[in-house]
Every structure is written in structure tokens, then in C-alpha cells.
């Protein structure tokens, strides 16, 4: 074409430039609104996510505190309660043992009674013997009274007869005493025999109680240990999850930066038709170029993040990293 070296704005017929500009003016605000819409949606979604994450962290805080109550102070309380329970139950065994010992002492007393009953038995036999001898003496006296004859012999015979009656009564009483003592002896023997059986059963019961108490305490001890272990494991894992969720919340801060960048891009796109109009209005291509450079410089000054500035300069820019605080 003969006019190839002419300025660009003269390459196309005026009506074609105007149609292109009109197309741009109509489409660019649409792009801007689309970007703004994406930015809004992202912001809402990130806000909803971070709100839920915050809820998760709060719930985990509660769960960790609850498991801390079980595995920490609560765990110590549980162990202490177990020890206290063990002491109380062993006191029951001690009480049973004390009762058994008291019974043994009582039986000792009953056995010593057996010695006295044997002595009483001998005494009863001696009473019978004395009554027998007395009776023999009274019989001899009666014979002598008969030899004597007369009033004296009759009087003496009456006395001898009365002495024989007393001796007979004494012998009967001695027999009854002996029988009663035999009954008491039988009862004592029965009591001692029954006690031996009770003592045997009592010994078995005390040993069985001790065994059962220890078994139950061991089972509860094992359960407590497992419970404390589970609570501690739950607490540790909850802490790990909580840290992960909190770190995810930190990562969600990207929305604040990308939102600002997108808002800036959308605003710039919105402004572009007006800027383009003003560039066209400058007249010469050189003025338009200067005005464009001024606009780009103004744009660079309006950036809020480092990555915007780096991209503007033609560099690449990755995600920003957290930095230390700077104190003034």
C-alpha cells in the first residue's frame, strides 16, 4: 500500500476506527463487571470458608479442653478416685479379717470354758462319792442303833435314817449336775465344730473378696488407663487438625490481595474507554504517547501490592510470603 509509512490512526478508514473503538467501549465495561463479579464471589466464598474454619477451630478448642479435663486434671482426679476406692475396699477386707479374729478370740474363750466344765464334772462325781460314803456310814449307824436297842437305839436309828435320806438326795443332785454339765459340754463341742466350718467358709469368703476386689480394681485401672490414653491421643490429634485449619485460614488471606488486584484491574478496564478518548483527543501521536506514559505512571503509583508493581515492570510475581513486623 502507498500509505504504509503513515501513522496508524490513518491506516483504516474513519468509520472502521470508530466501529472498533465502539466495540471496545462496549466490551471493556463488560470485562470489568465480570472481573468484579468474580472478585465478589471469591470474597463471599472465602468469607464463608473462613467463618466455618473459625467455627471448626472454636469447636476443636472446646473438644481439646474437654479431653484435657479427662487426661489432665480430670485424669489425675480419676486416678486419685481409683486409689481412694482401692483403699476403701481394702478397708472392707480388713473389717472382715478383724471379725474373723474376734471370732477366733471368742472361740478361745469357749475352749477355756471346756476346761472348767471338766472340773465341774469331777466335782459332781466327788459329790456322788461323798453321798455314797455318807449313806454307808448312815447304814452302819442304823445297824449299831439296832444293836443298842431301847430308846437310845430308836433315837439314833431315826437320825441315821435322816442322814441316809440326805445322802440319797445329795447323790441324786450330783448325778443331775453331772448330766447338765454333759449337756453343756455337748453344746460347746457342737459350737466349736460349727465354728470351724464357719471359719473355713469365712476364710474362703475373705480371700475371694480380696481376689474379686483386686480383679475389679485392675479392670477399672486398665479401663482408666486406656481412657486417659485415648483422651490424650484425641487431644494431640485435635491440636494437629486445629493447627492445620488455622494455617488454612492464614492461606485464605490471598483473597485480600487478589481482591485488591482484581478491583484495580476492573477499575482500570472501566476507565480505559475514557482514557482512550482522551488520548485520541490529544491530537498528535507524540502527545498521545506522552499522555499514555503519564497514565501508566499514574497507574503504577496507584498499586497497593509489590506483585502489581513487579508485574507492571515486566517481572513475574509469585504469592507473597508472611514477613516479620516492623516497629517504628
Amino acid at each position, binding site marked *: 500500500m502507498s500509505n504504509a509509512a503513515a501513522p496508524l490512526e490513518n491506516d483504516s478508514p474513519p468509520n472502521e476506527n470508530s466501529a472498533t473503538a465502539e466495540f471496545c467501549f462496549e466490551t471493556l465495561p463488560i470485562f470489568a463487571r465480570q472481573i468484579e463479579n468474580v472478585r465478589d464471589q471469591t470474597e463471599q466464598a472465602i468469607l464463608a*470458608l473462613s467463618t466455618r474454619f473459625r467455627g471448626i*477451630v472454636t469447636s476443636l478448642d472446646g473438644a481439646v479442653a474437654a479431653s484435657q479435663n479427662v487426661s489432665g486434671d480430670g485424669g489425675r482426679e480419676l486416678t486419685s478416685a481409683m486409689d481412694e476406692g482401692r483403699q476403701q475396699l481394702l478397708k472392707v477386707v480388713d473389717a472382715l479379717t478383724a471379725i474373723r479374729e474376734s471370732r477366733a478370740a471368742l472361740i478361745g474363750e469357749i475352749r477355756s470354758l471346756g476346761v472348767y466344765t471338766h472340773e465341774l464334772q469331777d466335782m459332781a462325781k466327788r459329790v456322788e462319792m461323798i453321798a455314797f460314803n455318807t449313806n454307808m456310814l448312815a447304814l452302819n449307824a442304823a445297824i449299831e442303833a439296832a444293836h443298842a436297842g431301847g430308846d437310845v437305839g430308836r433315837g439314833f436309828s431315826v437320825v441315821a435314817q435322816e442322814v441316809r435320806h440326805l445322802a440319797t438326795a445329795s447323790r441324786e443332785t450330783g448325778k443331775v449336775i453331772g448330766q447338765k454339765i454333759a449337756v453343756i459340754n455337748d453344746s460347746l463341742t457342737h459350737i466349736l465344730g460349727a465354728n470351724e466350718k464357719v471359719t473355713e467358709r469365712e476364710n474362703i469368703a475373705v480371700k475371694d473378696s480380696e481376689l474379686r476386689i483386686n480383679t475389679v480394681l485392675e479392670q477399672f485401672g486398665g479401663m482408666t488407663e486406656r481412657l486417659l490414653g485415648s483422651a490424650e491421643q484425641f487431644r494431640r490429634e485435635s491440636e494437629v487438625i486445629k493447627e492445620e485449619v488455622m494455617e488454612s*485460614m492464614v492461606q485464605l*488471606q490471598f483473597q485480600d*490481595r487478589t481482591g485488591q488486584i482484581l478491583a484495580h484491574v476492573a477499575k482500570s478496564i472501566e476507565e480505559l474507554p475514557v482514557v482512550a478518548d482522551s488520548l485520541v483527543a490529544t491530537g498528535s501521536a507524540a502527545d498521545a504517547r506522552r499522555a499514555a506514559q503519564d497514565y501508566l505512571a499514574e497507574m503504577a503509583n496507584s498499586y497497593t501490592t509489590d506483585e502489581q508493581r513487579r508485574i507492571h515492570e515486566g517481572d513475574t510475581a509469585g504469592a507473597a510470603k508472611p514477613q*516479620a*513486623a516492623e516497629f517504628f
Partner: protein
Amino acid sequence: MSKRILIVDDSASVRQVAGMALTRAGYEVVEATDGEDGVSKLTGKLNLIISDVNMPRMDGIGFLKAVKAHPGYKFTPVIMLTTEAGEDMKNKGRAAGAKAWITKPFQPQTLLDAVSKLVIA
């Protein structure tokens, strides 16, 4: 009695992260969505203020100046928490009376350390 901190930021997700970190550390948190809202929240006891820089209606530097001009809060320390990392903006913040500058994204512990260093009784 817990210490009360005002967070001024137009980004709800940043308010969430900062608010959660501070609440978990035992502080009471008041939130504002921009500088103007922040000025309206300058009531009652405030032991520290955290503010963004780029916000609609009133930006962080304007809010900082309003705080320092307020007789009840001119001695309240202000931490700027912002995506702005340029030295010019930092100098504006320093000149207006900010005590610290934290660039986003931030680690909650970084914010907590700065708060515990600057918070007043």
C-alpha cells in the same frame, strides 16, 4: 479484665483471622469495616488498634490521623496491617503515628507478638 482491641479492615476474612487469633489469646475484639466505621467505634476503653491501609470511604492513614487527633485515643498504639509494602506508604504511616507495620499475608503469631509488645494497660 481482658484488654480491648479494635480491628479496622474492609476484608472480612482478615478480620476473621486476626479476630480469632486475638480472641484465643484472651483479648476482647471490636471490628470495623473501614476508616469511617473505625472512627465511629472509638468509644470506651481501647488498649490497641489494628488498621488496614487501603479501605473504602476513609483509608487507614486518614483513620490513623483521626485517632491521633482524638483526645481520648491519641496515646492508643496503632499497628498497620496491610498489603502495602512500599517505603513511601510506611513513611506516611510512621509520620502519622503508627507504632508498627505488618505486611499481609501475616502469621497470627507475628500479630500476637506485636500486640503483646505494644498493648497498653
